[in-house]
């Protein structure tokens, strides 16, 4: 394991940021810490980096206890949401900073900086100041700067959070490809489930200072541990006391299937190729169903129509819990 976190807790006054976190991240993997804002994922990342110290618990990096090690000694690369560029230094000197601190010989530094700038496609911008770069370019510079010290682990805190949607998507793909090239153990924080599902090898869902679930994107999507994880990874609805995805509901005009529930269509909303149907079951449950335009047309789904709904075969479902019990870590 590259990073082992055991029993880590952190409080700020009365606010519990993290509580009893146990987590092991294997070497060379790209892991996403996913969760809502204020859930503790950034605090966890900063504790791994040594920018915060945990109240209890330990952090072991590459088999070495790093809990009391200052950030300078941990050899981690850290990328901030707002770039944290050294504004008065050129792009090349930003990247060279960590190497100069390590008193590497000048030609070695120059070669390394050139190599990294080529890697992040910024070679022709070497002599510019950060203020002359776009947001996406600045973040790539920050990434090159972090990679320059050949970090044991690379930590990214909402790295694409400040960028617009298009650039974010480009950089996301690019980060994935970069990781496949560089293979450094990488942890990134995000609140965007699409980003996590698309980029990460493994996702750690963090909420209210706890780990809700750890797994591959497929595991999390197909087999969520609870309704929070399910709800966070995509849209959900409830049918007959279970939480499931709106597109995992079979729709019929007659009571053909076993367990199908009768419902009356309240509203039909068309968004492009998709039709979202709001219906109310005879038990008074509000259900959202999503289906394709063609399917809806064939079934004549209109307001006031009666439908029979049941979960599709193999649909991911979790029992709905209006008052959820905190039962600790589910892994």
């Amino acid at each position: 394991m590259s990073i082992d976190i055991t029993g880590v807790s952190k409080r700020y006054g009365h606010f519990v940021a993290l509580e009893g976190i146990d987590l092991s991240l294997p070497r060379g993997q790209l892991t996403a810490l996913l969760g809502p804002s204020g859930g503790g994922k950034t605090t966890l990342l900063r504790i791994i980096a040594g920018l915060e110290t945990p109240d209890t618990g330990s952090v072991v990096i590459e088999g070495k206890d790093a809990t009391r090690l200052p950030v300078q000694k941990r050899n981690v690369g850290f990328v901030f949401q707002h770039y944290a560029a050294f504004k008065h230094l050129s792009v090349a000197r930003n990247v060279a900073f960590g190497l100069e601190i390590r008193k590497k010989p000048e030609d070695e530094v120059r070669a390394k900086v050139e190599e990294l700038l080529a890697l992040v496609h910024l070679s022709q911008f070497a002599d510019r100041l950060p203020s002359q770069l776009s947001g996406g370019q600045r973040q790539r510079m920050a990434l090159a700067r972090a990679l320059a010290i050949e970090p044991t682990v690379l930590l990214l805190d909402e790295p694409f959070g400040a960028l617009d949607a298009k650039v974010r998507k480009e950089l996301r793909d690019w980060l994935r490809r970069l990781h496949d090239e560089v293979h450094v153990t990488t942890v990134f924080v995000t609140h965007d489930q699409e980003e996590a599902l698309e980029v990460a090898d493994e996702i750690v869902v963090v909420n209210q200072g706890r780990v809700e679930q750890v797994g591959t994107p497929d595991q999390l999507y197909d087999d969520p541990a609870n309704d929070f994880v399910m709800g966070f990874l995509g849209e959900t609805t409830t049918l007959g006391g279970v939480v499931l995805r709106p597109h995992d509901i079979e729709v019929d005009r007659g009571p053909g299937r076993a367990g199908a529930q009768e419902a009356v269509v309240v509203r039909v909303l068309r968004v492009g190729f998709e039709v979202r149907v709001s219906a109310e079951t005879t038990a008074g449950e509000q259900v959202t169903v999503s289906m394709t335009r063609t399917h809806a047309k064939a079934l004549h789904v209109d307001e006031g129509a009666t439908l029979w709904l049941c979960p599709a075969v193999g649909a991911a479902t979790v029992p709905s819990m209006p008052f959820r019990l905190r039962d600790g870590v589910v892994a």
Partner: protein
Amino acid sequence: MSVQLEPRPPSLTVGPAPRRRTPSHNLTRTSGIGLGLTMTWFSLLVLIPLAAVVATAAAGGPDGFGRPVTNEQTAAAIRITVLAAFSVTLVNVVMGTMIAWVLVRDRFPGKALLELVIDVPFALPTIVAGLVLLSLYGNDSPLGLELANTGWSIYLAFLFVTLPFVVRMVQPVLEELDQEVEEAAASLGASRLTTFRRIVLPALAPAIAAGAALSFARAVGEYGSLVLLSGNLPFESEVTSVRILSAIENDNRATAAAIATLLLVISLLVIVVLDVVQRRVARRG
């Protein structure tokens, strides 16, 4: 304080870029009136009086200018003033930055009060400042430091009246400084000292230089807080502003103007030097 012009990024358009002549101004009627007002105001208050002083000083020819400032007593006063102003400015650069740092980065009881007290030397009439200092460092000093009527009294008065300048210039810049940048430097292995020297200081340099320039200019021209405290002993605690006043009292305007012009040149020189130093520090790192 200074705007650094960076080379423009190369144009991305293909083919020969159309040559456009940059107009020498971009003034509309309204902004033209604004500029006119500014210049009139500035001329009435600053440029014309300054020019008058320089003209008076130059009227006596090189000899009329040289004799007063090479007068032994005047030369001593200039030396004493400039040396004290320079030393005090150096102290302010260090102490002012430190005080600003404490005010911005630390939280402690009584901080709001300290914030207020910093401005007292600004708010206090200088003659009152002189009285305050005299009661503390004069004869029968409760601290046992009888500095009045010695050369040290000049340093004391200068330090008192120039204290807020660097603090107040550095403080807002420090507040705006992104602490993540310092964390980034730390994560790259930089010690706190290295981070300060290579990352924080270059960002603060323009503000420190501006504060230092103000501090120096204020010290060179200081009069009110000194007259009670220093005793105006020639060759020991007599400063230039006192020399100028006594020249005028003796109805010797040409001498007064000559000394004033020299002070003006020294102040300008210091401001230029500070700007050069500031630019160098801001680019290093």
